[in-house]
């Protein structure tokens, strides 16, 4: 009557994540380069360096995270593959984090160029609405228990949200150009000296890496969550 051998379950161990480690190091290096080794812009002062983290996060939030969410939503409604739904929800959550950073760093930079924390600038306002939409997406998911229905509803919202963004951009832009806002200093002109360009593109690359790493971890979490839900249902 020997007791059954207890096998150490593989699932308990969180795998080592080299991509995440590399991404964190890359971002840290870029931060150091931006703050200590990039020249200061003469007119705006050191606050201009906020650009590197603000603009990179903004681009990734809108053009990568959100677009990925929209595309996987369409694909899900077409192919009904659960994996697509998990990618969509992961892209949304990670995108939300990036969007939050954009909204927190934007006013800090704005205070120095516009003299005010918030001026309903077209881009920042559109980002604010993107934030609201993704939060709504998350709340919708939280409110629907059935997995299939949750995926379908989220996909519908994701697609509609993608259609909404251009309208928000356009309306806010028109609203702004007809109500000129005070600008104390002109924001950086497109032609940056090479040292700044290197920092700019390195920042973009590092954050892209970070997005990919976070997306992967978040996807794993989603898969585990579904697996747990299945197990709990079996025992019910």
């Amino acid at each position, binding site marked *: 009557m020997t007791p059954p051998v207890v096998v150490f379950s593989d699932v308990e161990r969180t795998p080592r994540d080299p991509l995440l480690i590399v991404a964190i190091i890359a971002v840290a290096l870029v931060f150091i380069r931006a703050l200590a080794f990039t020249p200061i812009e003469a007119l705006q002062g050191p606050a201009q360096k906020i650009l590197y983290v603000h603009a990179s996060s903004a681009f990734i939030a809108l053009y990568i995270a959100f677009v990925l969410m929209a595309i996987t939503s369409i694909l899900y409604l077409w192919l009904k593959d659960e994996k697509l739904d998990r990618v969509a929800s992961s892209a949304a959550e990670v995108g939300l984090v990036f969007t939050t950073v954009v909204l927190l760093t934007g006013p800090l930079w704005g205070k120095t160029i516009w003299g005010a924390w918030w001026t309903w600038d077209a881009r920042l306002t559109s980002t604010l609405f993107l934030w609201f*939409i993704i939060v709504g997406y998350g709340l919708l998911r939280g409110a629907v228990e059935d997995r299939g229905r949750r995926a379908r509803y989220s996909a519908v919202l994701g*697609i509609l949200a993608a*259609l909404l963004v251009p309208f928000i951009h356009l309306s806010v832009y028109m609203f702004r150009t007809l109500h000129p806002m005070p600008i104390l200093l002109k924001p950086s002109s497109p032609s940056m000296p090479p040292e700044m360009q290197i920092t700019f593109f390195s920042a973009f690359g590092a954050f892209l890496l970070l997005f990919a790493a976070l997306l992967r971890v978040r996807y794993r979490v989603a898969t585990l969550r579904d697996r747990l839900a299945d197990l709990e249902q079996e025992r019910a």
Partner: protein
Amino acid sequence: MDDAIANTPPGVLAAAWLVARKDLAIEFRTRTAFLSALVFALLGVTIFYFAWDSTAVSAVDLAPGVLWVIFTFAGLLGLQRSFGSELADRAIDGLLGAPVARESIYVGKALANLVFVVGILVVTLPAVVLFYNLPISSALLALAGIALLAAIGLVAVGTLFSAMAVNTRMAELLLPMLSLPFFVPIVMGAAQSSARLMAGRPVAEALPWLRILVAFDIVFVTACTLAFPFTLDE
């Protein structure tokens, strides 16, 4: 032969009209939802009047803002009850059992909601003119047109979201949370164009905003009609 004709299922629009008529008949019988939304709108219009310093800002300047904010919230109230009546006893299964295109259910519900919202506007718009002493000019007809365009957009998006929200635990909170970002271009388009028209400015100034309203309506009526079947559990 006569049986075959009598038993052919109605076309999409005809079916939609049937659904709309059913909803409106139910609504008309009790009228509570409509009257509540109406009273809410009128109260809102009056309360707003006391919310600002009338010596500093003129009524004409404030009226468009008030009108469209009230319109949005009264519209939301109306949308709340849209699918609620089917939730009881899973009455929607009866609808789904009928041989109608799924899109007809959506269009029918949206039409009923549109009648509801327009009904509120028919009373609220003149109320705003009255309480804020707006000069009744030729702009009134244009205003009605703008209101209709805005109502179409609001109802298109709101009907779809209420179909989803009604199946969740927090329907009353979820519907506004999901819909309001979508209402922003509508409110902006309607408010900016109506403000310019009410101030007597040339139509050309209001045109860009009207274009946004029309574009929004076209895009979202189409998108929501196509998306609706995916919100059904079948």
